[in-house]
């Protein structure tokens, strides 16, 4: 582990290898779900971990991506890639609007405005004629990639999703380590100072917010294609809460934290629910979070990093 983390390239290589081989051992649809949520949480983390903005309305982007892609694929008969691109663009645009309204507020007020906006979006999705209300938007075709490769097969779908995830993840990684990322860091550290250095911090936050929303939308679009369904669950405030949990559980402000957090939560929900502990799932999830908050506050990845730093430096 140590030598690997010393050299991120090796680590990335190993992870990529694992990701390519994973579907041989694990149910691909489950893996795709993990990847979608990992991307969603990573997008959220870009905002919380690197700009210090807690959005409590990220479900709106996930859902917008999903619904728009679903609508396009079922009604307009466009190709899968285009459907996903349009879904992502729609979420990006929505992110821009949310950002415009919310960015001027801070802390809990920011969180509450995003929550409120997301509630309005939820209402819209309940009422709008094309979303199927409670039933959700069903029967979204997976279609063909570039008109060639059928995505009906879980394996080819998986590699497509993996490619999307890697794209999103790489974009986040690059954003953090870009000139723009530097300014974001400065803003998080000392906002008034950044202003006095002549930075229009609202614009930077807005761009970060829009990016994050767009990537969350990408996750939602992809997810709707995988599951052939877009539903209100994705738009509900519980989803906004869940992504906070995933991110914190994995480790805020760490690159891999959200991925690990998403994998953990999704696995728990998937595998615990069918065991004998079925009706205790909520209680167990609750317990895990309580324990995490009390004992592993920096999240799984955060704690591992701390441990490494302490013991190997």
């Amino acid at each position, binding site marked *: 582990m140590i030598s690997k983390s010393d050299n991120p390239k090796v680590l990335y290589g190993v992870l990529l290898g694992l990701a390519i081989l994973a579907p041989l051992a694990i149910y691909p*649809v489950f893996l795709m779900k993990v990847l979608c949520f990992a991307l969603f949480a990573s997008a959220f983390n870009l905002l919380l971990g690197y700009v210090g903005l807690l959005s409590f309305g990220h479900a709106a982007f996930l859902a917008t991506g999903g619904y728009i892609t679903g609508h396009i694929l079922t009604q307009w008969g466009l190709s899968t890639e285009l459907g996903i691109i349009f879904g992502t663009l729609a979420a990006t645009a929505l992110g821009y609007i949310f950002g415009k309204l919310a960015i001027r507020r801070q802390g809990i007020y920011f969180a509450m405005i995003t929550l409120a906006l997301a509630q309005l979006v939820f209402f819209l999705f309940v009422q709008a004629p094309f979303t199927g209300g409670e039933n*959700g938007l069903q*029967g979204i075709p997976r279609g063909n990639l570039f008109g060639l490769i059928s995505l009906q097969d879980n394996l080819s779908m998986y590699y497509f999703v993996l490619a999307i995830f890697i794209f999103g993840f790489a974009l986040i990684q690059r954003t953090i380590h870009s000139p723009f990322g530097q300014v974001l860091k400065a803003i998080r550290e000392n906002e008034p100072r950044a202003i006095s250095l002549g930075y229009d911090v609202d614009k930077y936050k807005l761009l970060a917010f829009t990016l994050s929303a767009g990537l969350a939308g990408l996750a939602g679009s992809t997810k709707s294609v995988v599951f052939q*369904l877009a539903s209100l669950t994705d738009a509900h405030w519980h989803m906004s809460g869940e992504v906070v949990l995933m991110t914190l559980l994995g480790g805020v402000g760490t690159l891999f934290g959200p991925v690990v957090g998403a994998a953990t939560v999704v696995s728990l929900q998937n595998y615990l629910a069918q065991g004998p502990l079925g009706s205790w799932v909520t209680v167990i999830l609750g317990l895990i979070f309580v324990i995490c908050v009390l004992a592993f506050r920096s999240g799984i990845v955060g704690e591992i990093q701390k441990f490494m730093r302490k013991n190997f430096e």
Partner: protein
Amino acid sequence: GQYSDDEIRVAYLADMSGTYSALSGPGGLEAAKMAIEDIGGSINGKKITIVSADDQNKPDIGANKVRQWIDVDNIDMVAGMVASSVTIAVNKVVEQKNKISLVSGSAASSITNEYCTPNSIHWVYDTYALAHGTAKAVVQEGGKSWFMLTADYAFGHALERDVEKVVQENGGEIVDKVRHPFPTSDFSSFILQAQGSGAQVIGLANAGADTTNSLKTASEFGITQAGQKLAGLLIFLNDVHSLGLKVTQGLQLTTGFYWDRTEETRAWSQRYFERTGRMPTMVQAGVYSSLMHYFKAVQAADTDETQAVLQQMRDTPVNDFFAQNGKIRIDGRMVHDMYLAEVKKPADSTNEWDLYKVLRTIPGDEAYRPLSESQCKLVQK
């Protein structure tokens, strides 16, 4: 015969912990297990296994779960299925993967109408039957003007639509309606509106906690004393049990099953009671009945191959404690008799579960939407 994996694998999907869990949930799972035990744990030497999951009334969770069951666990069929929205989503997956779903919980009549599939059977009741039972009875007793209080989602919409039609056909009218968010905890302002409308009947097109809350609130605001009548369009045994007779007495309802009706129903229900400490709702009884019918079909066809079993199920009438001469139509509707019941007065009730008086049997053909009115793609016209 041919058996996938040399086992018969069934699944039970329901709301296990949410709003509808008391009427389906773990109790339904227990009923499913009873069915497996009663058939002997195996059929033609092939072991029966069961998996179950909580769909939390969310279409995505239900559909994903079933997809995984089919892809990974190779299940042959799924039973249970409660919230209509979940059912419609699951049925799509089941159709795509050519498996079987037996729907006992859901109400929406659209499941065998515009959303029908060749792989699903709707077992216990539907909104059409509810409308043609309760609503019709109420209109015929003179409740001509209606105010509809509807849960604002697929099931409520379906019920509202079916009831409106029945009311109008029987010479009544809908004076006003209001849709409430799902779920709602406070109904006072809706009740107030209903009161203000001056309608004779307030029709509750909702279910579970929403219905019980509406009823309580209505009693608090003295609706019945002021001369208006309530029609609970979908009421389950557990609702009446938890609300108490004092609040619910006199309420008319349509049900696909009541435990204290015949020797057979009593005998089966008694067994169920011994295992769970509660009397079964129609959904829980339906889970047993539908699975049993499935098992018998597997036995007879000596395979678990989907189309063969489905064919066998359709060809055999359903005859058990739950239904007499029930038949499975091409659109997936299992047609059987329904019952119009009335909630007893506290004085007339002899024990905790002595809750209904059955007023009338509604013959299956009258209770369910005739194929001639169907929009199901499987019905040739």
